[in-house]
């Protein structure tokens, strides 16, 4: 009946994630010097988010944690994105830059 038994993540996974993070860093530094206009910040944030998700899932063991923990994290990210969206909607739609 046990939903959750403590999973020990081993060195192989950690080394793989380390190299993925190093590759992601190299990629994002390289991409920042290429002029992609509008896409530069989006690509930088996409790579940063990919790295963050790898750290979350494997270094922080979210992939192996309880449903309660997963739900709490998902709830927090949803709330954070909601707050940012509402704040930005407010700023962008009210006399932008005229303060």
């Amino acid at each position, binding site marked *: 009946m046990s939903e959750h038994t403590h999973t020990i993540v081993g060195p192989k996974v950690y080394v793989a994630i380390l190299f993925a993070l190093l590759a992601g860093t190299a990629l994002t530094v390289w991409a*920042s*010097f290429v002029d992609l206009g509008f896409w530069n910040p989006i690509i*930088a944030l996409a790579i940063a988010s990919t790295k963050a998700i790898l*750290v979350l899932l494997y*270094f922080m063991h979210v992939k192996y944690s*309880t449903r*309660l*923990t997963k739900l709490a994290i998902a709830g*927090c990210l949803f709330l954070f994105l909601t707050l*940012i969206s509402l704040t930005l909607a407010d700023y962008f739609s009210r006399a932008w830059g005229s303060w």
Partner: protein
Amino acid sequence: MQNNQAIVPAVLDQAGSEHGEHPSYLRHHFQTVEQQADASNFAMWLFLLTEVMFFGGLFTAYLIYRNWYFPAFVAGSHQLNVVWGTLNTLVLILSSFTMAMGVWCAETGRKTGLVLCLALTFILGIGFLGIKSVEYAEKIEKHHVPGLHYSLRSFLDPDSDAAARAAGDKPMTPEMAVHTELYFSLYFAMTGMHALHMIVGIGILGFMIFRARAGAYTSGHVTFVENFGLYWHFVDIVWIYLFALLYLISRH
């Protein structure tokens, strides 16, 4: 959340010795070691989620002001050194890896490995702060610290400044140039808060190295190491975003 089969009566013990039937580190308000581990893990996550909101506010402020005073924020960002920033990212990723390996060592009872991993994480953390202080010193020299004799020279006359010249900055109007001070305010607030988290983490690492040498975390009770690992990785994630937003997106 838990299985109900393995519940051990932790409090009652006929012989009077309460610690006969369960590990000494199992607190009496928990029924099983697993329940205790899950509860403290969840509490740690709740703390980190409040930290997400805390840093999230700073990121939101940065997002709005960057769009608002775009030229000033681009010119401000050109003052940061990508080489130092990249080096610090590598140092921090490496420290996250050594921390993760430390957690594995604790979970599998490797005492020497744990002490080594914690010591490496400690050294890499100090290295990060060392590089950060080199960057801060440069800002102080160039009078780019908000409120402390802040100078607009690099932005009004970009040819006088090597970094601005290299980035091909055009002279700014004084009205826009004053907003570079806002960029550096957010730069110092965000990296400073991040550095403060690093300093706290390094302090706790020192304590843990001391305790790990005495064998504290390699005899089954690894919660402290695991929860500290979560904290350290969270600080790494914050830096991943800081690096992208402060150093990279205005570079091209």
